[in-house]
């Protein structure tokens, strides 16, 4: 279970989150949407203990991330937007290291690491190569494997499909759906509305640090007759439809 209770985050005079509250139940995939700077990544950072809230509470599996960080973090898996990892290591070295941080038994950890890399279609020839020269998609596969290696009960995905090819994208979506089916709680941040529409059971749209709407896709669309998720998003976030720059140059005065 993941719970935000009146979350506030300030950076000096700038208020990135202004009293955000929601709850994600086990087995649920919450699509967390918003334009750039809306506060999505800040929310993720508050849930993972990477930042301390200026107000309110963030709970992971019932544990307050500030008061009981270790208990909360043991339940967490994160795919950060940055896709950061120690590139000087090989994928297997990195996953063994992550397993060591969760004190997993070496043999089962090795077996699961290999299974995940295989599932995420990372060429076995690359498993023992340093990641310095890897493409973005190859690194992203390792980041995802490292996030789910310890079978976390709560997973936070911040643009997890960045750089992935079609096959890997399909498999990651299946992995997320499978984890939810097994009772994991999932927060999924993305700008790809069609993906969110397909895999999320509930959607929250955030703008300027506030929740604009929270509900199932069908409920949201019912409130805006004739609208699509895209137009609802544009309306709620104040992003007026406009011509793309290229179109302006070619067709407009």
């Amino acid at each position, binding site marked *: 279970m993941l719970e935000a209770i009146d979350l506030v985050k300030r*950076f000096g005079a700038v208020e990135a989150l202004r009293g955000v509250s929601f709850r994600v139940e086990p087995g649920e995939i919450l699509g967390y949407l918003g334009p750039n700077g809306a506060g999505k990544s800040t929310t993720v*950072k508050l849930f993972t203990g*990477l930042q301390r809230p200026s107000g309110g509470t963030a709970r992971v599996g019932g544990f307050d991330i500030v008061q009981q960080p270790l208990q909360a973090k043991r339940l967490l898996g994160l795919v950060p937007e940055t896709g950061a990892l*120690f590139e*000087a290591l090989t994928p297997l070295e990195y996953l063994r290291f992550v397993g060591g*941080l969760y004190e997993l038994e070496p043999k089962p950890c090795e077996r699961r690491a290999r299974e995940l890399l295989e599932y995420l279609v990372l060429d076995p020839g690359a498993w023992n190569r340093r990641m310095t020269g890897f493409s973005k998609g190859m690194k992203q596969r390792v980041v995802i494997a490292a996030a789910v290696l310890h079978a976390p009960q709560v997973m936070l995905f911040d643009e997890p499909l960045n750089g992935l090819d079609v096959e890997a994208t399909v498999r990651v979506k299946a992995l997320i759906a499978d984890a939810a089916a097994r009772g994991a709680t999932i927060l999924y941040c993305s700008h790809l509305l069609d993906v969110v529409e397909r895999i999320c059971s509930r959607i929250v749209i955030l703008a300027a640090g506030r929740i604009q709407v929270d509900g199932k896709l069908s409920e949201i669309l019912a409130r805006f007759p004739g609208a699509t998720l895209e137009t609802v998003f544009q309306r709620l976030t104040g992003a007026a439809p406009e011509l793309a720059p290229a179109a302006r140059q070619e067709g407009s005065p």
Partner: protein
Amino acid sequence: MSQLWALLRVALTVDRRGGGPFRGRISRAEFAFGVTLFLYFCFGGVLATGAVSELPLLLRISTYFTLVGVFVAFNLLAASQQLLLAPTDIDVLYWRPIGGRTLFFARVLHLLVDACVLSAALLAAPLVDVVASVERGRVAIGLAFVGAAFLNTVAAVSVVVVAYTALLRSVSRERFHDALVWLQVVMALVVLVVYLGLDPLLEALDLRAAPMPRWAQLVPAAWFAHLPAALGAAPEARWAVFGAGLGVLAVGAVAAARMLAPQYAMDLVEALAADAARPLLEAGPRSGRRFSWSQVLVAGAGRDPMRRAGFDFFLAHLRGDRRLRLSLLPALAMPVVYSGFGLLASGGWDPYSNESLATTSVSRRAAMALFGAAWLFVALAVLTLRSLASSPAWRAAWIFFAAPTRRFDAFYVGVLGAAFYGLLLPTVLSVLVPLLLAWHDPVHAVVHLALPCGFATLGIALLLAVDPAIPFAREPLRHERSFHWLAALLVLVPVGILARLQYALRAHPLLLLLGGVLAGLAGALAVRLARSRLQTLPLLRPFED
């Protein structure tokens, strides 16, 4: 415990493999580390054959340990950006269930391993010096020296860790990085003062036969020096002082572990988060008419668009890259501080005046400070050029390889021009103006700086021709900054000879001026050579076809 070892093992592996391959199976980080160790070993050799080796045993070991402690602390502070503040750590590690204490100890152990290797390289020659100077129990004294050196290194690491974590907890999160930068600048100046001031200090105090001053016992390095000195039967050595030192170290370590460790991870994360949010907070509306020195500087870049792009590029880095400023600020302060010291110590003495040529009315130390400061420009030039090679944003250098430029040399000349106008020229003026005010003779002041500036130009051009590096296109490596500093300090050895030569030739100002002009012209020729090399940099070839 397994978390601790996992963190330490990975930190050391990442250190070793950084920067990609250099040659064969050796990585760039390993090569840079090897060169640093060699330079440290040479530096230890210079120490062990200098004035320190003439001191009595206890004072000698104390001095070696103090110098090594200062150098190690500087090295650790200089590397703190990679060791303690690596932004990658946040997304990779800090959301994992790792306790603040575990993370803290993993980082401290990492520092300690690093510091021990550097200390070993620095103290190899002093160890030989100490062991060779005693007649009995050489093995025991050698072992005691190694043990005491380890404790001394632990003390140096502890000081750095306490300073760093105390700063983390006491300074506002938004200002933490700036405070750290200034701490490093101060530390760099301490290194400089220690390096330049040691011999004159020992000469002035004439400690060869005197007992160790009482105040020297307050220096932590001296506490541990009592161990090998007592075994070497030094009359002043006291077991009690060594024991007390050990006690202070243990108490300090326990206090640090209790007070600093638990909140370490969260404090660090908040400091990094606050730093990341700073551009957002500081981006307020700006007046369009606001005066900016960089606008004046850019106007001096000329109309060539490539050169201007290079000029803008460097100035933008100087404004926005704290690491670059950090690597250059202490270096810029060097000649200004040292020249000021020379002017004060000599009481405004003009070495080129007829009176001073007839009679020497100033100490050798003051004279050498005055001449040495001018020649520091050569070391400064080397350091500046080396600092341009790497950047944390090195990945953005793809633009150099992707842009279809045929005149990269013009871009580079723009970068160098900005470095010259933005950094080197103001520093030269900061030295020149006090000289003018003190000597009341512009010709003498210009003559004083002409030859060093000419050689600095030549140095930059030759370095550029030998090792042309695309600006800010290399991944910064561990030890890189201390390596540059050490290289700059070692450059001072031959430069010292040139300073003495200039002092000897001060009766011939025209000759010195001509020498400066010729060195400058040779530098201009070398720049032409460097420009042709820059046009054929291997990575640019695909775009030349």
